[in-house]
């Protein structure tokens, strides 16, 4: 007599298992197949092509009604199994029951739904079955939001975009597909998706799905709102183990099976995404098919053991070519071989350990993926071919890498010299016309003839045009790159690079993740270039700017509230005194910048102290920043018998306009009410000395390791114009100064005459500089203390855990 086999779940794994059984021993079992979906087995991997319109449902059906009939399968589709009675070996669905000699649980996985308000609204779907797919196919011309930038989420996004939807992807992590890709490859992927009109929002945490009767929009923790006629949650899956749990089978994260795919009950087996084998879960199809083979043998009383092998991932989005396999995290004894071809958007990374490949990440050109994957699976010793390994199997010696790939990739119209509007094409033409030295180039095109900061880049373009002849280029900005600060900045502008991984990828960074010297510089250049689009990366900031306080040698901090123009009130002083007492501040000191420093504050007290100071109207004094520090003033004509103008009032106006701005290095201002110069304005970065006839503005002073007197920039009778000139010169310095150059250093490089021509003589340019400064300030003119002392942020300042307390118990 045939034995009875009951299978719960008609998915890809159980389908493959049935094929194997019917092929080997067609008469071994009578099969009853339950499936909650009202249909049989289809190729779920092909849902993405169905969504994008490249295939239809009929084309992805694996087993049709004829197949089930031919093998005598009792199909109970549309029936959810509600209970397994292991004592009597009966399975009960919501409509019927079936006895078994052997039971296979193949319930697969369930999508993980983030527990946010609105998650149950109509219009919120997962991406698991045909119903979800159909809902997503109807989004043409509508707004769709995909939550989750992993494999599944991106396929959903690309599919809906192909159907004509306006799609936004919200991803919690810093880059897309972080489990499969490193930041550089994630950046390239994001760029490709954005090219096809998909908006990508990384570091976005979903707070709620808004809507009354159905989903209308998605609200993020940072306050951003994206309209959404459809919301697709694709944040992850978890094994569907509820039936097994209820039946008291052994379940950890998944249903626990042994090497023969048997559960803790000898009559019950499991396979697919619902199982856990030796602590591991499975989501890709290859190991599931291996499980199907093993379980088919087990059910036919043959000996078989499941042992998972490494699997590789490919994204099924037409035009996005990526490949990832193995382990690609940095680690002890691991080495990287990295290949970047920025111009063609290609990135390849091999992770090696003990002369063997243990990880592969490829983007843009994945042709050699399976070759590398073979070496990885086989554990091939690659020492002999290490030199040429990254170039793939076809490589047979050849030319060395072109160090000027970034320059070569620039289009002819890319601007190289901003001062004189000279493009790459003009330089190439000049070289073709015989300009072979820098002097000749300057003579005929003026490239690098003004401020001179583009000299290195001009030389590189010339070298490229001359056929790679050696040109003495200035030293690189750090050990991670040969490009100078100036070149990096220009390339950020010319190539439209908008994130740190983007810069590192496109400019061929030699390290993974940069170093403490290039990261803060890149962060500054990006936020100065793209104030609205780039969001400040706190982790790329030096401790003082990250924590918005000055670290002291014992690890405590100093807190300096802003006193506009050095003016304060009894109420502010009371609040400062209260804070000093409340937090046991060991020292209260008056600073040289006309404000009060509270020294010795513990890190975990910072947000509480800030919150108290905020309540009295006090904000951060940015006494720690490469940005505007203070505007020091004297009392001016309001009180002083020799004062000529309202120097205090002007100082306050300037400070209110400029506070919060980031600059290449710290920026200190002074406004003195008369030439006696009580505010010491002539040793500040920017100083204003008032006279009877108006305002004398001078720049480039210093009173640190170097002591320098400012040099005269402009004189004006109008306070308004004085303000405009100060803002314009600040913005010019922001746009052109090398990171960590004070104004005097920058001025020595570009020349005071050039600065004058930009901000004093050229009124249109002055106005444009002021406008750009104001755009940037629309983002940065806000108090970081208030932002970082919210109920959500405050706990992050305390230790993560205190094991001394546990020990005392």
């Amino acid at each position, binding site marked *: 007599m045939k034995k009875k086999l009951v299978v719960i779940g008609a998915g890809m794994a159980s389908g493959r298992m049935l094929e194997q059984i019917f092929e080997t021993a067609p008469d071994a079992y009578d099969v009853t197949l339950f499936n909650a979906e009202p249909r049989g087995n289809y190729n779920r991997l092909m849902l993405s092509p169905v969504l994008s319109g490249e295939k239809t449902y009929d084309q992805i059906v694996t087993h049709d009604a004829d197949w089930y009939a031919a093998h005598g399968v009792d199909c109970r589709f549309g029936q959810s199994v509600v209970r397994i009675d292991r004592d009597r070996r009966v399975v009960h669905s919501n409509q019927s029951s079936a006895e078994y000699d052997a039971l296979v649980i193949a319930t697969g996985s369930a999508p993980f739904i983030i527990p946010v308000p609105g998650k149950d609204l109509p219009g919120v779907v997962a991406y698991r079955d045909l119903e979800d797919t159909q809902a997503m196919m109807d989004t043409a011309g509508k707004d769709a939001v995909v939550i989750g930038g992993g494999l599944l989420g991106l396929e959903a996004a690309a599919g809906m975009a192909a159907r004509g939807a306006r799609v936004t992807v919200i991803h919690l992590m810093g880059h897309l597909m972080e489990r499969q890709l490193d930041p550089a490859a994630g950046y390239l992927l994001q760029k490709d998706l954005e090219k096809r009109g998909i908006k990508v929002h990384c570091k976005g945490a979903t707070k709620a799905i808004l809507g009354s009767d159905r989903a209308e929009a998605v609200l993020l923790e940072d306050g951003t709102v994206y309209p959404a006629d459809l919301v697709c949650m694709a944040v992850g899956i978890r094994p569907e183990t509820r039936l097994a749990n209820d039946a008291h089978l052994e379940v950890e994260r998944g249903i626990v099976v042994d090497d023969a795919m048997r559960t803790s009950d000898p009559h019950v087996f499991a396979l697919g995404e619902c199982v856990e084998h030796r602590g591991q879960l499975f989501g890709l199809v290859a190991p599931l098919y291996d499980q199907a083979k093993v379980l088919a043998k087990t059910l036919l009383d043959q000996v078989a053991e499941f042992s998972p092998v490494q699997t590789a991932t490919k994204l099924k989005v037409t035009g996005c070519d990526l490949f990832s396999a193995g382990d690609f995290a940095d680690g002890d004894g691991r080495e990287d071989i990295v290949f970047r071809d920025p111009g063609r958007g290609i990135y390849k990374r091999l992770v090696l350990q003990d002369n063997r490949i243990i990880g592969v990440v490829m983007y843009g050109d994945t042709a050699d993926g399976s070759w590398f994957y073979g070496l990885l699976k086989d554990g091939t010793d690659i020492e002999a071919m290490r030199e040429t390994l990254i170039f793939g199997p076809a490589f047979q010696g050849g030319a060395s890498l072109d160090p000027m790939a970034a320059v070569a990739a620039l289009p002819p119209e890319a601007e190289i010299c901003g001062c004189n509007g000279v493009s790459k094409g003009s330089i190439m033409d000049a070289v073709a016309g015989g300009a072979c030295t820098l002097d000749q180039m300057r003579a005929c095109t003026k490239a690098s003839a003004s401020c001179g900061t583009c000299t290195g880049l001009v030389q590189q373009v010339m070298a490229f045009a001359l056929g790679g002849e050696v040109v003495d280029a200035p030293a690189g900005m750090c050990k991670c790159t040969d490009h100078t600060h100036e070149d990096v900045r220009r390339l950020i502008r010319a190539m439209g690079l908008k994130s740190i991984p983007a810069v590192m990828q496109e400019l061929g960074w030699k390290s993974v993740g940069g170093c403490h010297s290039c990261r803060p510089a890149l962060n500054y250049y990006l936020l100065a270039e793209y104030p609205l689009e780039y969001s400040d990366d706190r982790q790329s900031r030096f401790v003082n700017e990250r924590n918005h306080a000055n670290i002291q040698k014992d690890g405590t901090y100093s807190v300096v509230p802003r006193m506009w123009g050095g003016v304060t009130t009894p109420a502010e002083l009371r609040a400062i005194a209260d804070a000093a007492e409340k937090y046991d501040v060991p020292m209260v000191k008056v600073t040289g910048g006309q404000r009060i420093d509270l020294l010795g504050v513990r890190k975990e007290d910072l947000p509480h102290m800030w919150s108290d100071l905020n309540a009295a109207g006090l904000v951060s004094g940015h006494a720690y920043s490469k940005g505007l520090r203070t505007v020091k003033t004297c009392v001016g004509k309001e009180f002083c018998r020799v004062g000529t103008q309202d120097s205090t009032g002007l100082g306050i106006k300037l400070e209110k306009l400029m506070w919060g701005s980031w600059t290449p290095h710290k920026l200190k201002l002074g406004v003195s009410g008369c030439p006696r110069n009580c505010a010491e304005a002539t040793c500040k970065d920017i100083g204003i000395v008032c006279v009877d006839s108006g305002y004398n503005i001078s720049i480039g002073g210093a009173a640190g390791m170097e002591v320098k007197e400012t040099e005269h920039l402009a004189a004006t009778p109008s306070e308004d114009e004085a303000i405009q000139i100060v803002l314009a010169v600040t913005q010019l310095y922001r746009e052109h100064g090398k990171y960590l150059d004070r104004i005097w250093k920058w001025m020595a490089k570009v020349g005071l005459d050039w600065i004058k021509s930009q901000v004093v003589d050229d009124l249109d340019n002055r106005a444009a500089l002021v406008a750009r400064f104001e755009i940037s300030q629309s983002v940065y003119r806000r108090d970081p203390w208030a932002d970082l002392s919210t109920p959500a942020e405050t706990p992050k300042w305390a230790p993560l855990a205190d*094991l001394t307390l546990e020990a005392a118990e």
Partner: protein
Amino acid sequence: MTVFVDIGALADIPAQGARLVKTAQGCIAVFRTADDRVFALDDRCPHKGGPLSEGIVHGTSVTCPLHNWVFDMNTGAAQGADDGAVRTYDIRVQQGRILIDASLIRANRAA
């Protein structure tokens, strides 16, 4: 065999950042890299005692915020010309939770 205790969620530490764990032997800096690996090191630079937890994390290295000594978090060894090392501790991530060598608690009981 090493026994581990749970000190918090991976998500509690910013990528390329660190948080502190207080122990009876002093503070330990728990780092998270850009690719979500974690490391635990004494939060004290052997040079002048700088808090490594406040350093810039790059790759699997961290730079001390006081004088720019760079440490390899895998080994705790100072890189380049600088000579010295900080102690490292066993740490791992399981299902999004960070687990650290429990002997850090026991060491206190013995003390």
